[in-house]
């Protein structure tokens, strides 16, 4: 369905690009082999954001990661937004485009969060139809990312891994596996993160995300982890990454750090740890 010879992200660490790191990255990117941007931050008409992107794209492959398409929305996709994504992808020619298994817009309001979906036959169809529309509009395969979950829908009648496998089978999309989200969801909903990885369709993973989370408790004292992208990746998530890579083989690994963004050296340390994890499975 899609051209298998199209450019791919390297099996190397990448970082979520922040404008304040431009000079550091141009001077010495360390093991960083690619960069990811949030699509919506580069939908202006010009100025510094697009100029920086032009410079960086001469040096690095890019992943365009959407955070606002609302693929799980009950209503139709926002055609204007999809057109903006096409404009950006046609211009930048990224090696990858990804979005979330979530919804964020409803009744013309954009809520700026990745909101959860029940896992049912009805949502499989809705999400698959939307992904078909995205892939045919952009003319490329997209990757779909698993969410961080804080609660469960009473109406869900299938597992998240079965849901994702069904979406892949119907649409031919690939997957973005966020192992921090797996750890957060498994802790919050009381299942085994390794069991999730065992059931996950790893053959279709085009990218892996790693990020930090915050710790809280629910009203019954049960652990409630919040996906914040505001600190270092914790040791159990690194361990879950090792477990995943041992089964999947090397993949492009992204460090996400979106709030309280640190100076470059802190982020660079995280990319070295990701590089070491990759080296363990790259013979």
């Amino acid at each position, binding site marked *: 369905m899609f051209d298998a010879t199209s450019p791919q992200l390297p099996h190397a660490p990448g970082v979520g690009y922040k404008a304040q790191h431009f000079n550091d990255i141009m001077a010495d990117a360390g093991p960083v082999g690619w960069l990811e941007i949030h699509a919506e931050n580069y939908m202006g008409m010009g100025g510094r954001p697009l100029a920086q992107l032009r410079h960086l794209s001469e040096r690095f492959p890019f992943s365009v990661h959407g955070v606002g398409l609302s693929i799980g929305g009950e209503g139709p996709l*926002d055609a204007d937004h999809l057109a903006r994504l096409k404009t950006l992808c046609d211009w930048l020619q990224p090696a990858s485009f990804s979005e979330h298994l979530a919804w964020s817009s409803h009744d013309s309001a954009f809520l*700026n969060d990745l909101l959860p979906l029940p896992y049912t036959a009805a949502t499989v169809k809705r999400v698959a139809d939307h992904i078909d529309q995205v892939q045919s509009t952009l003319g490329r395969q997209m990757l779909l990312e698993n969410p961080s979950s804080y609660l469960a829908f009473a109406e869900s009648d299938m597992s998240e891994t079965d849901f994702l496998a069904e979406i892949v089978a119907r649409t031919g999309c690939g997957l973005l596996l966020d192992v921090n989200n797996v750890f957060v969801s498994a802790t919050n909903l009381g299942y085994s993160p390794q069991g999730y990885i065992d059931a996950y369709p790893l053959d279709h993973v085009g990218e892996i995300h790693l990020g930090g989370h915050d710790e809280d408790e629910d009203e019954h004292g049960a652990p409630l982890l919040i996906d914040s992208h505001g600190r270092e990746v914790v040791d159990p998530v690194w361990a879950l990454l090792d477990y995943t890579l041992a089964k999947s083989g090397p993949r492009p690994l992204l460090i996400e750090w979106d709030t309280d963004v640190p100076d470059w050296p802190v982020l660079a340390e995280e990319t070295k740890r990701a590089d070491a994890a990759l080296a363990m499975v790259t013979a």
Partner: protein
Amino acid sequence: MITTQTAFRKALLDPAAPPPTGLNNPGGEQATKRFDVYRNNVAVSLTDALETAFPVVHKLVGDDFFRAMAGVYLRAHPPKSPLMMFYGDDMPDFLAGFAPAQSVPYLADVARLELAIRHSYHAADATPVAPDALGQLAPDSLPHVTFTFAPAVRLVTSQYPLHSIWAANTNGDTSSSEIAQTAQPALVTRPEFDPIVDPLTPAQSAVCTALCEGASLGEALRHGGAGFDIGPLLGILLGRHAIISLKT
């Protein structure tokens, strides 16, 4: 039990509403605090986006007032698109009608200026005319010349000393900044990547407005009143790369 996105959205934006039914803790009972994670994400992320967009409004009213005001705004005017860099386009009108803010009558104008700066930052790139472009024209053609302005140019009119209010609250040190006592519209330009805000006199603002609307230099000058000197305004426009073509 189906939990619709309509019910989810309604409860997200109404802190007093009970969480939608059909959302459970792992133990199977109704989720409450877990639903509040989403409520909190929405309110905090939109409030933070407004604080990023309106730093001078934030400074003028203080953090407590700003965050309370943002809570009212984000529920009345949730974003209409995922482009958070442009969230807040309704803020000036909202502030003009927001009773608790009436003691700061210029707040809406400050918000308009901050929006203009953001839109300027993201506007399309354009190549300016040479600094001596007007000097290359035959003197008798000057009254007939019309300008095309760069997409990053914005003019924010105000009956308040807008530029000095903004400047005094932008550079950190407010003690040394004199607030002008007269109306002081603000011109936003972007010579390269960072928008620059210059003060205009009301007469310069009237002439600049006419030029922006396509009037010839001769026609625009009539808006400046008796004794108006076009030199300083043209100096700003050319020096700040605001003009991208001339037509005679």
